[in-house]
């Protein structure tokens, strides 16, 4: 069924009895041309573009829980392409372009809302760094504006402009940035992929790999039996090391927990996404009205999917320093998601050293905004066996060759990226 205002009106005449599930909950039915391990946004987007762009007929997405139940449902829904380093800039801008056409492409309301992303600066050195980043973005055709204190004040008069320690001097604004509805992104990709014949298999945990005598990956062992496939793509960020270990691989990745928070609902308050430049705090307002915010990862390896209180305190202090009125709002919920923190803070989309096994991993903080381009580029790699030009830098061997993409300049310390 194609969703439209006319379908809605027709449905109204029949008391809306025309609705049915948006995607098929399939049972494993191998062999497949491509098996995607991981039914999050990236896995589903990969399956969709494999079927749509590359015409791959038999594709399966295997999810150990339910689709979108991992990090796709645990992020802060921000989309942006304000990256400064070669490789990242082009990739995230391609993602932003896909976001801009996503709803029409999927025929699904993903609530993409380009309300702007504003990164505040609080000193001369930070202004210069943002000017440099903005210039790098503009040279790649990405929109970026360096705005002064008065312009920030007109957008968000409630910020703490005259804080003695970190007065707001201005910001780097990407007007095309904003937010999207994270669950709808998952559901939209699932529906569109399912319509193209992709099998979405839930409650199907991969427990091992099946290899041919020559060592090639030819299938996976799962809790729902053995499933054979020509190529196997991993998109299990947060648990990439675990799945890779089953294949005998070690990755340049550590797993860390990142917390996020939401307050009670308020009337429209924030114009878009605002980030604090003197601490780690970013905030936006959901369509339901809650302030959605986050900060640093907890800082030590964790698979716990819940965080500790010192970071809760640190994030809330950042919020108070940036916009003191946030202290009047009650925080409703907090939750944690497990990130693949890579050694340079940038992702990996590449072949693995094992024939037939492909990696999509190491998304750090950037996973949600990357969803469309990650799927697009991973599908390209799986279908053609060569990297997509905008993701060609995200190689697994870049750590050995010295071509790391370290946006923050922290070195091989995953807990600091």
């Amino acid at each position: 069924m194609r969703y439209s205002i006319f379908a809605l009106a027709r449905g109204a005449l029949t008391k809306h009895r025309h609705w049915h599930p948006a995607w098929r909950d399939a049972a494993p039915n191998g062999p497949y041309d491509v098996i995607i391990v991981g039914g999050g946004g990236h896995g589903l987007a990969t399956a969709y573009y494999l079927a749509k762009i590359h015409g791959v007929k038999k594709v399966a997405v295997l999810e150990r829980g339910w689709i979108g139940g991992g990090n796709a449902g645990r992020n802060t829904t921000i989309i942006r392409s304000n990256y400064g380093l070669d490789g990242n800039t082009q990739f995230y801008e391609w993602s932003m372009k896909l976001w801009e056409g996503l709803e029409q492409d999927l025929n699904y309301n993903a609530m993409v809302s380009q309300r702007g992303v504003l990164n505040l600066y609080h000193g001369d050195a930070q202004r210069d760094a943002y000017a440099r980043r903005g210039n790098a973005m503009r040279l790649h055709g990405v929109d970026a504006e360096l705005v002064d204190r008065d312009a920030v004040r007109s957008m968000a008069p409630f910020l703490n402009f005259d804080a003695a320690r970190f007065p707001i001097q201005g910001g780097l604004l990407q007007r095309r940035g904003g937010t999207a509805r994270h669950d709808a992104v998952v559901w939209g990709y699932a529906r569109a992929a399912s319509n193209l014949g992709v099998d979405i298999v839930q409650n199907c945990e991969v427990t091992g790999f099946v290899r041919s005598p020559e060592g090639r990956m030819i299938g996976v062992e799962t809790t729902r039996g053995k499933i054979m496939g020509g190529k196997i793509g991993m998109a299990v960020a947060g648990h990439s090391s675990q799945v890779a270990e089953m294949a005998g691989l070690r990755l340049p990745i550590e797993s860390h927990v990142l917390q996020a928070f939401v307050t009670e609902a308020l009337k429209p308050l924030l114009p878009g996404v605002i980030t604090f430049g003197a601490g780690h705090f970013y905030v936006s307002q959901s369509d339901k009205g809650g302030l959605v915010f986050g900060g640093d990862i907890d800082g030590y390896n964790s698979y716990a999917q819940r965080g500790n209180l010192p970071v809760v305190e640190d994030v809330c202090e950042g919020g108070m320093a940036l916009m003191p009125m946030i202290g009047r709002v009650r925080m409703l919920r907090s939750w944690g998601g497990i990130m693949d923190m890579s050694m340079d803070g940038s992702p990996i989309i590449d072949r693995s050293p094992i024939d037939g096994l492909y990696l999509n991993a190491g998304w750090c903080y950037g996973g949600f905004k990357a969803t469309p381009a990650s799927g697009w580029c991973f599908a390209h790699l799986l279908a053609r066996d060569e990297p997509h030009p905008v993701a060609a830098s995200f190689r697994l061997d870049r750590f050995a060759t010295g071509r790391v993409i370290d946006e923050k300049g922290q070195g091989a310390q995953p807990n600091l990226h």
Partner: protein
Amino acid sequence: MRIPCPYCGERDGAEFTYCGDASPVRPAADAGEAAFVDYVYMRSNPAGEISEHWYHGQGCRNWLIVKRNTRTHVISAAMLAKGSAP
């Protein structure tokens, strides 16, 4: 999280600085490039017990090796890094 420092006793985790997995050991200077790439970048990243380095910067300023479960944060042992094997 509270870390049982062998010198100071059980202390708040905020007094400590994290320095990651303690199991990689620096290879000999002539071990070759592959060994160093493995040492600097590759990690086992276990879901379960891990040995890791913590620095008690706001306490005794000792480097510790702490054995902690990454799923539950339960700490089973903590010892001074000096003279201990990870």
